């Protein structure tokens, strides 16, 4: 059995360290906040100008002026701050955010990321994704390993227009966890297998240059 979306989020949460400032993208990354370990204290940044993002409000707590970057209503915590979009991206671009977790359409073996447009289809825009992957210290992608039509999304080279060049540090898919050599040409290394998944299945579904870590963990 491969990992579910929830299990992928729970695995990504293990990458969180105490004191981290973290930006979470939409989809599986948002779920990560449900799995923060008890002994780990993190602060969520939302690029629309909020640091210290709390959970969704109770029905009687909704405030139209408190939203996250996905335009969802959220709440304040003790220590929350608000700031302009320029200050927000000073945090992002200036390397002040420790970790960004986001989704992807394709990741290449050198860490190239494509997640913002498909030529010929209506383009919605990149939002803050290009700034985040360029500026945040560590970038983790959570994504399905293959597309709906069965094609691998972990590739030698991205076929779609890039969001960033050599930016991805780690990929977590339903099949396992992969370290990405974004500085060199080492490709991707399988460091952890999801429950019930075989190395053969990973190899069959991966187009990127793949190595198997000597200390491979089987979840």
């Amino acid at each position, binding site marked *: 059995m491969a990992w579910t979306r929830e299990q992928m989020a729970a695995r990504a949460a293990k990458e969180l360290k105490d004191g981290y400032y973290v930006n979470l993208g939409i989809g599986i990354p948002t779920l990560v906040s449900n799995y923060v370990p008890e002994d780990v204290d993190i602060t969520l940044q939302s690029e629309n100008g909020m640091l210290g993002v709390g959970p969704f409000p109770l029905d009687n707590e*909704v405030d*139209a*002026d408190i*939203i996250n970057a996905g335009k*969802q209503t959220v709440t304040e915590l003790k220590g929350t701050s608000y700031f302009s979009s320029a200050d927000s991206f000073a945090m992002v671009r200036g390397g002040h955010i420790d970790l960004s977790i986001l989704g992807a359409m394709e990741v290449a073996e050198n860490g190239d990321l494509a997640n913002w447009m498909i030529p010929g289809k209506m383009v919605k825009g990149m939002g803050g994704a290009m700034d985040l992957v360029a500026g945040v210290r560590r970038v983790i992608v959570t994504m399905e390993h293959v597309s709906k039509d069965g094609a691998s999304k972990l590739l030698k080279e991205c076929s779609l227009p890039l969001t960033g060049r050599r930016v991805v540090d780690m990929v977590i898919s339903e099949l396992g966890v992969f370290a990405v050599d974004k500085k060199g040409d080492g490709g991707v290394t399988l460091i952890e297998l999801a429950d019930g998944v075989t190395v053969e299945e990973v190899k069959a579904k991966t187009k990127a240059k793949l190595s198997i870590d000597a200390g491979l963990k089987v979840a």
Partner: protein
Amino acid sequence: MANKVYKDAKSALEGVLHDGMMVMCGGFGLVGIPDRLIHAMRDAGVKNLTCVSNNAGIDGAGLGLLLEAGQVKKMISSYVGENKTFAKLYLEGKLEIEFNPQGTLAERCRAGGAGIPAFYTKTGVGTEVAKGKETKVFDGQEYVMERGLVGDLALVKAWKGDTSGNLVYRKAARNFNPMMATAAKICVAEVEELVPVGQLDPDHIHTPGIFVNRILCGAPYDKQIEQRTIRKA
């Protein structure tokens, strides 16, 4: 001191509108958008606008109103996914779009308002965003040059303002408003509460009045929520 206070959005825009102008518009999603001023822009019928705004509103709200009325020629934005009218106009070839990464857009406005014509950023290096733009290596890292932006008119929304144009924003409704306020020849601000000069704490002012030419109170506001997400008690 010259009077900056106008009785409503319509009168605050008198004499500053012309076809083909570039309008800088604050807000993120529907939060912190200058709703009264956008309505007045629509009613004034000014056309061929270039709108610089992170988003393009939704159908029936925000800049969606100007799109539906066919008043916008071009958008400079980072994300327009919420708007069906936008997609329709774009696919019909009636609307141009220039996508900017969100942080680059914010910095282009900040720089423009601060008299900085261009800056270098690592955002977008190696992507379509950098095509045709100058790049330069600093300390071993490649950067792309982006231009500052200055519009003809800035429309911003604040929580409180005073009669000299000082502004205080509320919570996440600050977003793009402080940069937009600085990045145009004329800035018009609408506020929820307009107070006499001297009543705002000088230490708490986000946008000093020097950036604001005209101000109006748009109350009462009935703020729309794009995605009302709640948790159970």
